[in-house]
């Protein structure tokens, strides 16, 4: 560009600038602040709420009993993972990443760096929220209104309301010590005559008498018509689960509404007189002994 042309160009631009109004500095500051605020909202707030819900759901989805409720870890995970919370968490992380990247110096950090930092913030604040009970509120109270989401307790109850697989849950209504039987009302409000002669004395004393109320039973459904059940093991739901669902009405897991794969016919592999051969019996017994 010749000197003359350069000068002409400068004059042209300077004349153009006469009409231009500068954007005030506060607008840039507000814009930058807005990206930070959005990052905080989506990651520190939203992400940590999702982490609290995921932590609660994972803890109370019934890990201990997967050998009897689902048969394998894979099926258990497929059935119980909190997909909705995980999706919400990933979406919040992604939105947070986009906002962080748009902050003044955000572009200098790599994707892995920003995501790791956001993840760390979510985990720390998420576990704080979980420890003060926010996770329970989100998974149970708020979560039941979320489409496609099943709260952890509801999932556990569904898994145990499955007499065809030798799983039963409900409230103890009456006990007959002489003939070692008790009556149980399940979550679908059916009454079950339960044979407890295979139960050890400790179960009678410590679980049935001390915990009397909400129980889960592992055993054999002898007759679907008469609702007779042989109990091999009984377990209380525990403090966290107490009062969280047996007052709800759940249908019995049958052919039409059960998501879980069927077990082999228990009557063929199971000896009702000793409980031997009952799927998962050894695992749960070992677990109970360790406690």
């Amino acid at each position, binding site marked *: 560009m010749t000197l003359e042309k*350069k000068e002409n160009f400068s004059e042209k631009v300077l004349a*153009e*600038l006469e009409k231009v109004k500068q954007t005030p500095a506060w607008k840039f500051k507000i814009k930058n602040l807005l990206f930070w605020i959005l990052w905080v909202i989506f990651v520190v707030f939203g992400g940590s709420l999702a982490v609290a819900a995921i932590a609660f759901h994972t803890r109370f989805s019934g890990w201990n009993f997967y050998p009897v409720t689902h048969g394998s870890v894979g099926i258990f995970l497929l059935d119980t993972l909190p997909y909705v919370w995980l999706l919400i968490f990933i979406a919040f992380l992604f939105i947070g990443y986009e906002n962080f990247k748009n902050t003044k110096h955000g572009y200098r950090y790599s994707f892995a760096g920003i995501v790791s930092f956001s993840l760390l913030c979510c985990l720390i604040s998420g576990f704080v929220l979980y420890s003060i009970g926010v996770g329970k509120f989100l998974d149970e109270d708020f979560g039941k209104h979320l489409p496609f989401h099943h709260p952890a307790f509801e999932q556990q109850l569904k898994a145990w309301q499955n007499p065809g697989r030798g799983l039963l849950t409900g409230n103890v209504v009456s006990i007959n010590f002489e003939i070692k039987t008790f009556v149980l009302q399940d979550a679908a409000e059916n009454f079950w005559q339960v044979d407890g002669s295979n139960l050890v004395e400790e179960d009678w004393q410590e679980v049935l008498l001390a915990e009397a109320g909400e129980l889960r039973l592992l055993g054999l459904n002898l007759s679907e018509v008469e609702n007779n059940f042989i109990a091999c093991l009984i377990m209380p739901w525990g403090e966290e689960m107490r009062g969280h669902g047996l007052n709800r009405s759940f249908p019995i897991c049958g052919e039409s509404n059960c998501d879980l794969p069927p077990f082999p016919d228990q009557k063929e592999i199971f000896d009702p007189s000793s409980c031997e051969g009952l799927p998962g019996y050894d695992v749960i017994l070992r677990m109970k002994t360790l406690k």
Partner: protein
Amino acid sequence: MQLFSDLTDEEIAVRASRERFLFSAIMTRYQERLGRYIRRLGVFDKEEVEDILQDVFVKVYKNLQGFDPTLSFSSWIYRIAHNETMSYFRKKILRPQGHYVADAEKVFLTLGSNFNLEKELDLKIKADVLAKVLPKLPKKYREVLVLRYYEEKSYQEISDILRLPSGSVATLIHRAKKLLKKFLKHLEE
């Protein structure tokens, strides 16, 4: 203008946001360089280069109060020039069709010495070969090569101009050189 020759770009930028006449010092310093850069990005029409350049200076002036003095002014103004040129391509639904070759010889020497092209490939490549090959590279590679070897920007400056992490800039340059080498080898065959 001589009065301001001792001032840094950043100092002028801060003052020009209050005193418009100082903006001409910025234009004097950057007009040539940015014009060349826009041509190197693939805009050949002189009038269009001038139009883009004018838009760049208007935008720079408009956003002068948003200039972050922790960055170099040069990186900031290059970023605006880059964005305006890309927006020009988008508006025209165009792809850069060639490359500015005026100083390609110098660039070729820098690039060549950088990965020993002549030794490795035993090619007697002329600068215009490089100018033919560059436009064939994907945009992301072309951009970093232009900034690194034509504009002689540091990795940090390229990171600030393209708004990419420095690590990604290094990776892009490495891959771009590898691809360039492949193209040159293909030309030889």
